[in-house]
Structures are given as structure tokens and as C-alpha cells.
């Protein structure tokens, strides 16, 4: 590492973004933090929050559902990214359109669509009962399974795209070289493809986890009030309970959670990138 620190004029290019984010994001965030601390006496709001067993349920709901959504996205998204990176021409264009086009449909619309799909008389239930996998029609709507399925659908592009962009740059000869050295397809997958795409996987996980941990519209529409996450609780505190201190406390906890994930993953991917 170089010990001389000189100002790099290139950094000035980030100035507009920094200014914009400071005004519209940084300052409100500071107010929020201040609100959670000021109220009835410093850190007591946080102490109170963590002393309440209900908070732990909410925290658990948030982390568990976000982790499940991330896992589903990874399992579905990785193979898709692999195909996308290896495909060419029409297949590649078709997959990319299928991934990117749905992003133009609002999340509220998608959540409503999932309400219909997951109903007791919805498509999923009809297929499973029709196939004899389920004995009788079941309702996935208003269940955590339904939430995970719906949210994974909405967030999966954010898993596929970063993995794809890394895989695309991996020399296909590396896989061939591994094959000529006697590595089976499975060994090649775990020892060559996965390690080389790890930076993409980590970025995808960070994207999806932080979005899934803070989703508000989807749980509100797909599962309702009985399942509270940090995001829905924040919304309720401000909108219905008029409890600004609780709202800002949960918002700060959520923020800390997602910042933790993003920082940890960028550290990890930088370390792996350095080793690679």
C-alpha cells in the first residue's frame, strides 16, 4: 500500500451524488436517529425496544423471511445466471427481457397478482390438488410461505444480474482446463464456477437481503398485520399508532441490520477479490 495520500481529482466526480444523498437521505436519517434518541431519554428507547419480547419476534420475522427470500433467489437465480452467461443471441435476449421487463411492473400490482395466485382457489392450490400432492385446496395467501414465494419472484432479478455480470467475464476455458485436469462437472462447479462468481453471489445476496428485510408493500398485501417485520412495524408506528419514537427506533434497527449486511458482504467480496 502506498503511504502518500494525495487528493485524487477523480473523486470530484462523486460530488453531485454525495451532495444529493446528503440533502435527501443523510439529513433525514440524522433527524430520524435524533428522534429515536431524544424522546423520553437517550438510549432508553432502544433498551425498551430490546427488552420487549414482541420486538424479538418482529426482528426474527424480518431476518428469517429475508434470509428465506435470499436463499430462494440464490437457488433459482444462480443456474439462470449460468445459462444467461453461456447463452448467446436469441436465448440470451429472451432471458434478459424476461428478467428486466417485470421490473417495469409496479410492486403493488405484483403483490395483488400474488394475492390471486396464492388464494385457496388460486392457480397454485389448483395445480397441487390436481396433481394429488395436496389432498384438499390450501391457502398460501396470508402465510409466510406465500410471502417468501411472492417476494422471491419480485427480487430474483437482483440476484441474477450481478451473478450474470461476473460470470460473463469468466473465461470459459477455465472450465475446460479443469475438465482436462480430470475434474468432473460437479467438482468443476464447486471449485471453479462458484469461487469465480463469488463476488457476484455476495453482491446479489446483499441486494436481495437488504431489499427483502425492508420490504413493506409485499408483506402488507400478501400476509397482512398478523406478521410484523421491522419495516411494517415502522410504518404502523408512524401511520396508525402515532408513536414516532417507536417508529424511528425500529427504522434505525432495520437500517443497522441492512448496513451490517452490506458492509460485511462488501468486505467479504473485497477480500475474495484480493485473493483472486
Amino acid at each position, binding site marked *: 500500500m502506498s503511504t502518500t495520500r494525495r487528493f485524487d481529482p477523480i473523486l470530484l466526480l462523486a460530488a453531485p451524488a454525495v451532495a444529493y444523498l446528503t440533502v435527501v437521505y443523510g439529513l433525514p436519517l440524522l433527524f430520524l436517529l435524533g428522534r429515536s434518541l431524544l424522546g423520553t431519554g437517550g438510549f432508553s428507547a432502544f433498551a425498551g425496544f430490546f427488552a420487549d419480547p414482541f420486538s424479538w419476534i418482529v426482528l426474527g420475522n424480518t431476518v428469517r423471511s429475508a434470509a428465506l427470500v435470499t436463499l430462494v433467489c440464490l437457488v433459482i437465480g444462480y443456474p439462470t445466471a449460468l445459462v444467461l452467461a453461456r447463452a448467446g443471441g436469441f436465448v440470451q435476449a429472451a432471458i434478459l427481457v424476461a428478467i428486466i421487463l417485470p421490473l417495469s411492473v409496479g410492486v403493488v400490482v405484483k403483490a395483488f397478482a400474488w394475492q390471486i395466485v396464492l388464494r385457496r382457489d388460486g392457480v397454485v392450490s389448483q395445480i397441487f390438488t390436481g396433481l394429488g400432492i395436496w389432498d384438499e385446496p390450501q391457502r398460501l395467501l396470508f402465510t409466510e410461505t406465500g410471502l417468501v414465494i411472492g417476494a422471491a419472484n419480485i427480487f430474483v432479478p437482483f440476484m441474477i444480474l450481478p451473478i450474470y455480470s461476473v460470470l460473463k467475464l469468466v*473465461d470459459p*476455458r*477455465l472450465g*475446460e*482446463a*479443469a*475438465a*482436462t*485436469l*480430470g*475434474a*468432473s*462437472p460437479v*467438482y468443476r462447479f464447486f*471449485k*471453479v464456477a462458484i*469461487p*469465480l462468481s463469488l463476488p457476484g453471489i455476495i453482491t446479489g445476496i446483499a441486494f436481495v437481503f437488504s431489499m427483502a428485510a425492508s420490504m413493506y408493500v409485499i408483506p402488507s398485501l400478501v400476509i397482512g398485520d398478523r406478521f410484523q417485520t421491522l419495516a411494517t412495524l415502522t410504518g404502523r408506528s408512524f401511520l396508525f399508532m402515532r408513536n414516532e419514537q417507536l417508529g424511528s427506533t425500529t427504522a434505525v434497527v432495520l437500517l443497522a441490520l441492512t448496513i451490517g449486511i452490506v458492509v460485511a458482504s462488501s468486505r467479504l467480496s473485497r477480500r*475474495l477479490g484480493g*485473493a*483472486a
Partner: protein
Amino acid sequence: MNPAFLDITGASRSFGAATVLDGVDLAVGKGEFISLLGPSGCGKTTLLRIVAGLMTPDTGRVVLDTHEITRKPPHRRDIGVVFQNYALFPHLSVAENVAFGLKARGAARETIALTVARYLGLVQMTAFADRSIKALSGGQQQRVAVARALAVGPKLMLLDEPFSALDRKLREAMQIDLKRILREVGTTAIFVTHDQDEALTMSDRIAVMYRGRIEQLDTPTQIYHRPATPFALDFVGLSSRLAGTVVASHERMLTIETAAGRLCAPGQFIPGSPVVIGIRPERVTVGAGGENSIEATLIDIVFQGARVQLHFEAPAGGRLLVEAHEAPSGAAPGASLPLSWRQADTLVYPAPAEGGAA
């Protein structure tokens, strides 16, 4: 002759309408070092990929060590490949790259450590064992790629222009190193190159490839002195050509009428056949009295260090190249000089068909 160690028969492959390999036959003996020499795009890499199992031929068979492997997947073939761009694993260190194949085959930990140490020593990279691949020069990467391929003890090594990215000096050093290493290990090898000097200095035999076919498979000496086709004559070494017509054929000795005069050459053609005569420049001497002799006009003298190249114009437009140790005294461009050479050094080929390229 005992059956070849690697036996390729009738291998063909097309991409769409383009036939890239057109019925290649190639038999390689155990321990042999064969070069595939040919211009860019003639199908050398395609042939290697078929042998390695990274591509299947449309027709034809590949037999290695008496087993047919035409459709066997690459990881069960025991064939090492050094890729043109080396294809080293960027996420692994030098030693881990060399260990990769052994680990994939589930070798014991001590075996891996010993083998890696041995092959890193062989390619003189021991000091770099823990380096990242990115921190290596081209020549060092090339050594690691060779060590990685050899470490699993392959039956056959395929090397696809491994030296093309190196400067000339390093390339020559690596050529000697590679020959030494392969001799020590005793591996059969096919080496792809489009550098004729590389092929001539390194190979036991050379396969000259052109447009998806093997034009000639022979020792370097034979390839150079007895090229089987006009293409082989052109592609390997320098040569001059004269067009002529066979006027008499007697006991395998031809008399050929050219614009520069009558020449004699060993060969078998029916009188009346149009032919092309080829001569290597170092076989021609300035002066009268050889078995074949013509008058030509000196047009240029090119000094090349150890040798000089003399460019002559033969009557009726043919160009003749002569390589000598020094320019004939007093010769200046414009002078008309006698040139002569032996009949045995006169190569005769059928003239190319109208409109066809040689």
C-alpha cells in the same frame, strides 16, 4: 509397425457451411513430439480440441493407447492441455493451480505436496509457489500451465501455441526447457504452432496442415528438403519457383523446358505435363557449371548478418532467391550472372489447376 499410441482417423468437423477439418488422419507414436504447423485458421486448435474431448468430430475416430475415446468426456481422457492463453485459475495460487488436477482426482495430501514440489522444480517456479497468478509474467504463467498439465501424469500432452505471446529470446529459452521437461517426464506431445522455426527445431515429426487437411507428416529434415506439396514448400522455409513443361522422362529423370532454359530433375511425370519447379535459396550458387544452370539478372542484395540474400530475375519474369555467405565480388544490381544447382535439389510439383491456388 506396432499400433500408434494416438491414432486419429478420418476426423472431420464443420461449423455451418464451413468445413474446418476435412478427414484428418494422424498417427503418433509413444514418446513422440509432433508439431502441427499451419497458417491461422487451418484447423489446428479444432483438431486439438477434438483430441482433448472439448469438441466431438462430425465423423472419424480417436484412439488413445488402444482405447477408442472419440466420445469420452474430457475429464476421463488423461490428456493434458496447455491452452494458448494458459487458462490458469485466477482464484488459486501457483501451487494450488498445479495441485488442482491431483485434488480433483482425490490424491493423498502427501502425494499432492510431493508432486507439486517436483513439477514446480521442473519448471523452475519453486520460488513462486505462493504467488498469485496475476503477479506472474507471461513466461512464468506458461511454466505454471505446463507444470499444472504435467502434474497429473497425462498420457498425452497437447500444447496450443504456448509460446506465441513471448518475445523471441524467451521463446527460444522456453523451447529448450519444454523439450528437456518432456524428455525427463517421457510424455507424448502434440505441439501446435504457426512458427516454422519452432516446429523445425523442436519436433520429432511435423504435420503440415492446410485448409483442414494434413498435407505432409514427416521429419523436419524431410519436410524441409523434400516438401510433398507446393504449400509445404512455401510455408516452410524460403523457396523460388519456376514454371515449366516436362518434355522428356527417362528412368525417373525429367527434362523440363522453362523460359530460362532446360532443367533436369528427379521425378515421374508424363511428358507434356505442366509443372512447377521449386528450389531452396541456399542450394543455389552463383557461377556456371552445376548440373542445372541458368542466366539471371541480379536485382537486389539484402544483407542479413550471417548471410546475404541475392534477388534475381529469371528470363520471362520468374524470381529467384539465392542465399550465400557473401555477395559475389564486384556484383552489382543489373549484372547478368549464371546460377547453378544440383539436379537432386530440384523439386518438381504438378502445376496448380487453372485458377486454383497452390
